[in-house]
């Protein structure tokens, strides 16, 4: 007897249909084999499936069972074939037909319950695209799958429940999308909690509004990390399409917790500087997304930027330029989006206390030069905004009464950011880009015409600040964003003058 159970496999963010063919032969020695390039995890599913079936009080046939995962030449990975295999076997034992147009997906536990399985969202999406009506997924992954409308998502707790449903004894209702079940990850800090750092906060606002990358230089304890962590709070919430994009990435990498839902808040990732290249940009033989993809549409914060290994820093170059990453492996080639705001921070010197008002720096000139050189030039070139974060003197701050009233909360800043983003979206609607930061030189010429006066300021600044040609373009981009924040049609002198504050002071 032969049964074909439809399922699917994820290759990067692509989903490919896989038929799980289960044949229980009436002759031959009892054996249970899986063929069709299964990974170790799938091969081991034999033991899980057998034990789970028996422990669910169902019969496991003592026959020759061959499972084929078709297409046979595509390598398969993951633990979610447990359910389709078990369904294929038990349905033949119970002699029931399978529901039409249905996908099965999920990892089994030895007691027959289904575990939360990564990639449920992608499967639901695939089901919808391919015209499947029903999908059967673990209960804990059901909310994630139910994000996709137009497909019946059956939340299955265990094998017994599934077969009761298939036999028509009890009814499992399709899951409704519950929205945010657990509390969303709120940004850790509100901008109004950051005392002082007026200029750095303004730079954050510009970065958020124009999608510019940002580099912060400052001593330990000056508040660089706090500022970076407050940045997601002033970014516009993700749109529907963006949310889905981000949630997909988190789904394939198994980062969506049980009962998880759509990610609506901009992701914030801050990998430690000991991260490997594969960890940062993605990799593995079946390539998984790296931190840069997990930061897609959000913020990638690289603290202690000069401590990152050179090779890891350099690997950021191409994805920063393209906003996506292609990972090629012998078995597969996958694409992951990676459009993020890079926030990098570094100490001014190895000991960290150069320019510190109180503590003494113990580094020699040579050490400082060496330290600064460790930050990759090409990466710094791709960072528009440079800002110094001085150490805040608490006593000096407390002298200013009413300073706290002066502080703006994140949501107020975000309103301005959203307006500026809207202006940019309209401006670039025909260009396929969304933010000022993405402008290429041709866009700058087209969308940022400068008046004579602004040009004059810029060329004067070029002389007094020793600006490179690339720096000119950065200044124009930043000035454009500042103008957008103000709602101004054209870049005027004040916008350009302020932009000059965020130039790189290193030569």
């Amino acid at each position, binding site marked *: 007897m032969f049964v074909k159970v439809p399922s699917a496999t994820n290759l990067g963010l692509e989903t490919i249909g896989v038929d799980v063919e289960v044949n229980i032969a009436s002759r031959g020695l009892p054996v249970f084999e899986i063929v069709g390039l299964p990974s170790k995890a799938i091969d081991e599913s034999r033991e899980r499936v057998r034990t789970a079936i028996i422990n669910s009080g169902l019969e496991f046939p003592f026959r020759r069972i061959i499972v084929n995962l078709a297409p046979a030449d595509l390598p398969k990975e993951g633990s979610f074939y447990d359910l389709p295999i078990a369904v294929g076997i038990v349905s033949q034992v119970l002699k029931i037909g399978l529901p039409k147009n249905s996908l099965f997906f999920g990892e089994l536990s030895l007691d027959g319950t289904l575990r939360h399985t990564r990639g449920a969202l992608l499967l639901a999406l695939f089901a919808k695209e391919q015209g499947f009506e029903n999908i059967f997924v673990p209960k804990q992954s059901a909310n994630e799958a139910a994000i996709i409308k137009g497909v019946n998502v059956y939340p299955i707790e265990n094998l017994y429940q599934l077969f009761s449903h298939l036999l028509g004894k009890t009814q499992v209702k399709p899951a409704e999308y519950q929205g945010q079940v657990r509390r969303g990850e709120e940004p850790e800090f509100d901008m109004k909690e950051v005392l002082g750092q007026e200029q750095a906060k303004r730079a954050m606002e510009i970065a958020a509004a124009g999608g510019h990358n940002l580099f912060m230089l400052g001593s330990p304890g000056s508040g660089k990390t706090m500022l970076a962590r407050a940045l997601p709070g002033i970014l516009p919430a993700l749109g529907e399409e963006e949310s889905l994009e981000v949630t997909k990435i988190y789904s394939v990498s198994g980062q969506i917790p049980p009962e998880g839902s759509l990610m609506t808040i901009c992701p914030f990732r801050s990998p430690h500087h000991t991260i490997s290249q594969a960890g940062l940009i993605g990799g593995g033989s079946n390539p998984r997304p790296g931190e840069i993809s997990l930061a897609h549409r959000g913020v990638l914060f690289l603290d202690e930027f000069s401590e990152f290994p050179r090779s890891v820093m350099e690997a950021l170059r191409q994805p920063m330029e393209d906003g996506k990453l292609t990972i090629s492996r012998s078995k597969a080639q996958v694409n992951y989006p990676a459009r993020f705001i890079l926030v990098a921070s570094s100490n001014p010197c190895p000991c960290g206390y150069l320019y510190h008002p109180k503590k003494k720096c113990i580094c020699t000139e040579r050490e400082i030069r060496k330290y600064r050189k460790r930050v990759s030039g090409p990466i710094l070139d791709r960072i528009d905004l440079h800002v110094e974060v001085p150490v805040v003197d608490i006593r000096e701050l407390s002298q200013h009464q009413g300073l706290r009233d002066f502080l703006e909360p994140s949501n107020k800043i975000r309103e301005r950011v959203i307006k500026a983003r809207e202006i940019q979206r309209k401006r670039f609607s025909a260009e396929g880009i969304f933010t000022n930061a993405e402008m290429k030189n041709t866009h700058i010429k087209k969308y940022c015409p400068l008046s004579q006066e602004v040009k004059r300021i810029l060329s004067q600044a070029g002389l007094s600040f020793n600006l490179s040609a690339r720096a000119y373009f950065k200044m124009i981009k930043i000035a454009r964003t500042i103008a957008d924040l103000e709602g101004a049609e054209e870049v005027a002198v004040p916008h350009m003058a302020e932009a000059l*504050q965020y130039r790189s002071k290193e030569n």
Partner: protein
Amino acid sequence: MVNSNIENIVPISDSRYPKLLKVLGKDAPKQLYYKGNWEEGIFENCLAVVGSRRMTSYGRQITEKLVSEIASVGITIVSGFMYGIDAVSHKAAIDVGGRTIAVMPCGIDLIHPDYQKDLYQEILENKGLVISEYEGNFLPTLWTYPRRNRLVAGLSKAVMVVEAGEKSGSLITANFAKKYKRKVFAVPGPLTSSLSKGICQLIKEGADVVTGASDVLDFFGKRLTIKATETRVSVNSLIEQKIIQKLQQESMEIDALSRTLGISAAEIGTVVSLMQIKGLVFNENGKYYIKN
């Protein structure tokens, strides 16, 4: 590295050998190696300017101001080509068209520290002189630095010390100056700074306090020929005036200006950028200073 030239040696027997060095007796080096254009006039009125490698922005500011005024009347600035005050003195002297002598702690063919080779070239291209008592590629060692200091003091009629910590090498130079009966000038700094400790010590021991370039020029019997350049650019807006007022009291960051004036950092940044382009203020290590 620059190619050695056999002719660039001045032995003590040579008539071109600096007289001030000759009188040092056994402290006088047997020969001097040099790069650049050896012209006897350069040794006539020498002022050594030495100070901390780890200068503050105040140190840079005052050195630039004093040296440019002193060098512009034709006094040669002698220093040790270290980073910090030394390098600033050389640079300031060149920038006003003055002459400067860099004394190396290493062989004449080496540039130490090597990342200052741009400054080295500039000195040579602007009638300056690089000298050393060591030949070829002799590497600098711990003991050559104080030996070099003895030449810096020995070549000069007076030594001016800007910013020196408690155990600064500049104090060694000052001590040589005393030993050779040369004048010692000390440029005062804030008492709170650790880089004023050495200066205070010098003043207690009888060094002359410098309150302006004229103090030094009087000693050389010279007068300031050009008035300090009065290129006052008009101060336009009210904010500019407020900022100038604040910065005259104390150097500040944008953040501090924003807080004390109660104006947003964006606006302060805009105004300060324009002021910087106009040359009213300058930035160092994140703080803004009035340009004078």
